[in-house]
């Protein structure tokens, strides 16, 4: 600064460079302007003022002091009555509620509570309903560590309130500080917090706003959590998105709360992780700070906040506790502890000096993610190598932690070497097979995995445990790539190896066997083999006295899946046992999947209400358990199935569309979930009479199944073929229907001989054969299916058998064997008057009408047909039942014709024909059937021209069907004879 400054700032700064005593003189000399000099002096004085001035305190404090001028509701005076409670004093106020201390007298005892009055009223019935639902769920939550919800209600003015247990305590962090708790004491206190949170999670209640002010410790040192689920309750009136946005405290909020993602139990685990970090370091983490707790303790940390001197705490935290906190606060929900209980267990392991589960950020997880991202796609082999190596390093690390003592350094080094040698071999082999380096780089993950799986056989023989880890990894990767047969092959190898390493009756072998059985489910393995595998696993578990391990639970589920085809009641029993086993543990994907199994068995047993409840429960779990979220597609799909069987067709369509949309969103257009949901939605639309839409979806699903799984896939392809065949048959494309139905039957005959699946295929095939007039093969199919059902404990009187009997009736009618038709119909249970409408019941009624028609009993036919019409009208879903309305109208019209009541017959038959024109393909024989009946009525009515046109149209439809049953041909012949005669 050579020139003399001429503005206040420069003068000020120049003066600052001088000793305070010299400043006045310097200024007098350099600043001649009196006003300016005075200003600079004021600046210097203000600068020297080191008292706590405005700018020296954080901005927040001034902002906070000014406060927000949201006129808070007028405090209610002492003595105001809210429900049964008398307000005593105001305890505090939040954005959503005012809290009062309140009392009520009950049976002479005065009970003090914390009464929360919500600021906002719940005005719509929907808001009030949600408030009540939430309140009911919360009231059931009883745990000594959770402040209880005593009561809740809505005042006459529409103001909701809740009465909570009044807790006298201080925030856990304050408590730890004021009581100078050491690290172990803090950890033990934290474990108690986790246990309480876990109890709430079991009730599927997520806190969503855990933080020290909600985690109190009473004078007795007991933990009490406040406001569990209140965040959601208070938001009960809001729409879903705002709800999530509101209920959080930034410092403790998980990334999914910022991102407005799904709030799950993992969200609370995250907040617990932040809380643990704060508890052990004495300081709150900055939002989003992903550093280890130990690194947050610096030289300048206030030691009065710490459980011990900084140096000591840093050392205590480094390693396990750092890892535990990082795991709990992982950005991806599925990488955190699976439950608050698992979190507590790990902290307890640390307290007991045992190895903890938490480990440095999981490479295994990244490898799995990587593979999932590149399923089917091209992945550079170098990246894949990195992924696999990383995964293996972790697998080895875990194996190493499992066996604590034995000469581990040496063993591990040997393993690592062996694994590296093996992988090097795999990649060299790839380069050999593919001398063009560019192409070798283009090797897909799948090809590389195949290569690895091929070469693993002779490799790593001297380090069998490591080899087992590798096999498990490969099997998982194949599962992720959805290559069922390959996964199965590797699982078999893993079982063999586990037998050799751990002994044939070890728990490890049982676990591998259960995995193998699971792999068999979606592969080409036979049922007998699966049964043998499950039996062996069961024997091992029994011998171990294992009744409640996750392996036992998985075994129960596999048993249920196995028996579902051979003994549904037994399958249902197994599935429910699995549900009970997992219900005793924190909510998990295993519980949700067990509920799914149980629901499927309940469906099979026609326990529709139980099935619906099970699927709905699974969906609730998927909403709060991150691991279960991806399976929500399945749960919704089956819920749709149950709803459609209960004839809640609109509900079913909603559920299935939700599932289909979810599948396409999460998995892309070409994924097995898309296939399954699309197939179900297509099938439903066909059942609802929306054949064109349904056929389009099902044809797309067939292409997809063949593309993804091959034409003879035992599970998906045959299911979609079967559904498509049924829809084609109903729509009137009989040739295509037969081809698809027979292909489906062939697949089940090969892969599931003797199963109920096969019985269903045979029946569906028979339905097409009947239309085509191939009576003998139809009869043979139905007889075979009947035998299978009887063998699988579905006796002739059961509901599951009824479909077979109805088809037998239809076939007898088609053959003109009235006596037999009557006999089969007689075996079906008659309708109870007020039973809910179902496809089965409608079919039975209309069959009865058709048997009566064949017998010339016009009155009987009219009664049954009319009952069907009434039932459809009662169902409230007339639109979805158009196909049935058409058949009912046709039967009613024919009954009127038989009674020579042309005036009644004509409108009925017109309606039948109109509906069928709308629903069916132009070449459908059922369309011709309606034309023929109407033509007969027109003749009776004397309109020969109309009759002739209809007869000609019907004839051309028949001409387009190379093969058609006589039940269709005969009426046309009769009609044509009549037309000619008149």
């Amino acid at each position, binding site marked *: 600064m050579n020139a003399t400054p001429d503005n206040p700032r420069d003068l000020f700064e120049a003066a600052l460079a001088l000793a305070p005593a010299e400043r006045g003189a310097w200024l007098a000399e350099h600043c001649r302007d009196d006003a300016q000099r005075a*200003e600079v002096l004021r600046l210097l004085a*203000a600068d020297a003022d080191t008292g706590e001035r405005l700018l020296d305190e954080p*901005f*927040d404090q001034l*902002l906070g002091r000014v406060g927000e001028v949201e006129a808070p509701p007028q405090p209610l005076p002492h003595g105001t009555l809210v429900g049964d409670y008398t307000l005593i004093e105001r305890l505090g106020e939040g954005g959503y509620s005012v809290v009062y201390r309140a009392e009520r007298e009950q049976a002479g005892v005065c009970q003090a509570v914390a009464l929360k009055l919500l600021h906002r009223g719940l005005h719509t019935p929907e808001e009030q309903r949600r408030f009540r639902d939430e309140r009911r769920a919360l009231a059931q939550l009883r745990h000594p560590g959770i402040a209880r919800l005593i009561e809740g209600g809505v005042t006459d003015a529409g103001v909701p309130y809740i009465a909570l247990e009044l807790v006298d305590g201080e925030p856990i962090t304050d408590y730890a500080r004021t009581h100078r708790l050491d690290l172990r004491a803090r950890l033990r206190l934290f474990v108690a917090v986790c246990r309480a949170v876990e109890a709430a999670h079991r009730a599927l209640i997520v806190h969503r706003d855990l933080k020290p002010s909600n985690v109190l410790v009473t004078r007795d040192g007991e933990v009490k959590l406040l406001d569990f689920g209140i965040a959601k309750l208070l938001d009960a009136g809001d729409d879903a998105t705002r709800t999530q946005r509101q209920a959080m405290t930034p410092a403790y909020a998980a990334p999914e709360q910022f*991102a407005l993602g799904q709030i799950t139990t993992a969200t609370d685990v995250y907040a617990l992780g932040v809380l643990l970090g704060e508890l052990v370091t004495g300081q709150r983490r900055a939002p989003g700070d992903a550093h280890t707790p130990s690194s947050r303790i610096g030289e300048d940390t206030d030691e009065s906040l710490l459980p011990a001197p900084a140096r000591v705490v840093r050392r205590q935290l480094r390693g396990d506790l750092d890892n535990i906190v990082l795991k709990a606060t992982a950005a991806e929900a599925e990488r955190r502890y699976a439950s608050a209980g698992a979190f507590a267990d790990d902290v307890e392991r640390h307290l007991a000096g045992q190895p903890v589960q938490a480990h440095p950020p999981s490479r295994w997880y990244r490898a799995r993610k990587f593979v999932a991202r590149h399923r089917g796609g091209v992945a550079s082999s170098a990246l894949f190598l990195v992924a696999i190596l990383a995964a293996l390093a972790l697998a080895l690390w875990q194996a190493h932690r499992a066996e604590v003592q034995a000469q581990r350094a040496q063993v591990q080094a040997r393993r690592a070497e062996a694994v590296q040698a093996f992988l090097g071999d795999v990649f060299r082999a790839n380069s050999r097979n593919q001398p063009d380096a560019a192409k070798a780089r283009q090797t897909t993950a799948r090809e590389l995995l195949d290569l690895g799986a091929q070469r693993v056989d002779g490799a790593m023989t001297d380090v069998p445990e490591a080899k087992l880890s590798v096999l498990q990894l490969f099997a998982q990767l194949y599962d992720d790539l959805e290559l069922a047969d390959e996964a199965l092959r590797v699982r078999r190898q893993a079982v063999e190896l586990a037998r050799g390493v751990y002994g044939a009756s070890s728990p490890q072998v049982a676990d591998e066997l259960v995995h193998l059985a699971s792999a068999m489910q979606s592969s080409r393995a036979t049922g007998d083999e699966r049964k043998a595998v499950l039996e062996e696993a069961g024997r091992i578990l029994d011998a171990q006295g294992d009744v409640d391990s996750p392996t036992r639970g998985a075994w129960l589920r596999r048993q249920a899946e196995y028996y579902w085809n051979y003994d549904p009641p037994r399958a249902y029993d197994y599935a429910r046992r699995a549900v009970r086993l997992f219900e005793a543990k924190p909510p998990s994907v295993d519980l949700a999947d067990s509920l799914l199994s149980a629901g499927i068995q309940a469906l099979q047993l026609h326990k529709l209400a139980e099935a619906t409840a099970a699927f709905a429960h699974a969906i609730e779990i998927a909403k709060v358990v991150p691991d279960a979220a991806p399976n929500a597609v399945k749960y919704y799909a089956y819920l749709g199935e149950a709803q459609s069987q209960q004839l809640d067709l609109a509900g079913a369509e909603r559920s299935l569309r939700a599932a289909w949309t979810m599948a396409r969103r999460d998995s892309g257009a070409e994924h097995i979930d898309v296939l399954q949901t699309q197939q179900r939605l297509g099938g439903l639309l066909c059942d609802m009479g929306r054949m064109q839409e349904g056929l389009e979806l099902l044809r797309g699903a067939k292409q997809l199944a063949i593309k993804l799984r091959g034409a003879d896939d035992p599970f998906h392809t045959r299911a979609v073929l079967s559904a498509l065949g049924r829809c084609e048959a109903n729509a009137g494309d009989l040739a295509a229907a037969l081809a698809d139905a027979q292909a489906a039957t062939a697949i089940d005959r090969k892969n599931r001989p003797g199963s109920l699946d096969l019985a269903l295929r045979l029946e569906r095939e028979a339905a097409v054969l009947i239309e085509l007039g191939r009576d003998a093969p139809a009869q043979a199919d139905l007889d075979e299916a009947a035998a299978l059902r009887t063998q699988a404990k579905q006796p002739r009187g059961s509901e599951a058998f009824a479909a077979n009997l109805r088809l037998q009736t239809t076939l007898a009618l088609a053959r003109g064997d009235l006596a037999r038709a009557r006999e089969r119909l007689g075996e079906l249970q008659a309708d109870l008057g007020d039973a809910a409408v179902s496809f089965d019941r409608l079919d039975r009624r209309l069959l009865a009408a058709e048997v009566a028609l064949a017998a010339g009993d016009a009155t009987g036919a009219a009664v049954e047909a009319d009952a069907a019409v009434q039932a459809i009208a009662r169902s409230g879903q007339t639109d979805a039942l158009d196909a049935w309305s058409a058949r009912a109208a046709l039967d009613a019209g024919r009954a009127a014709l038989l009674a020579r009541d042309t005036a009644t017959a004509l409108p009925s038959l017109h309606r039948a024909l109109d509906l069928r024109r709308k629903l069916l393909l132009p070449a459908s024989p059922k369309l011709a059937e309606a034309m023929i009946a109407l033509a007969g009525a027109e003749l009776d009515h004397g309109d020969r021209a109309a009759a002739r046109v209809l007869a000609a149209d019907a004839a051309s439809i028949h001409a387009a069907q190379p093969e058609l049953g006589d039940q269709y041909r005969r009426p046309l012949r009769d009609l044509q004879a009549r037309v000619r005669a008149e």
Partner: protein
Amino acid sequence: MSASEPNPAETAAQAQPVGALFDAVYDRLKAMASRQLARGSRGTLDTTALVHELWLRVNTGRELAFEHPAQFFSYAARAMRHLLADRARDRMRQKAGGDWIRMSLTGSEALHPQVESAEQALALEEALTKLEQVDARAARVVELRWFAGLSPEQVAELLGLTRRTIDRDWRYARAFLLSALE
């Protein structure tokens, strides 16, 4: 020279907070502050955390789009400044008519602390506006450091200035504002 040091981030940082983007930042921070205050422990706010939280969302592409961090933080800081001024005006409006300030001079003992703080806030706002006219960059530093709660290092990085310059700006601005508040 202090007043004429080249400043690469000047354009972004000095861009007037106008238009929808500023409104969006303001609305978000205001809502976040209310929410935090509502549920916060005994009325304390952590606005630094709020600004960083919003930046986290912005930075991960979940909300809004900024060309440069400097733009976001200067908007956020300005938003906080507006928030304080708005609240202070609300407070004054709520408590009394135009006479109130004069009355308060006589009976400051009885003053409601909220109103006293509101007065302070408005005086500060006035002073800061004056500072902007004299030394815009120093005013910017106050916004970023005090209103947005950034550290001097962060401010230096955002404005593309040295830490030493920021410290000097801050010292001058503090003296300027405090002397204006006398």
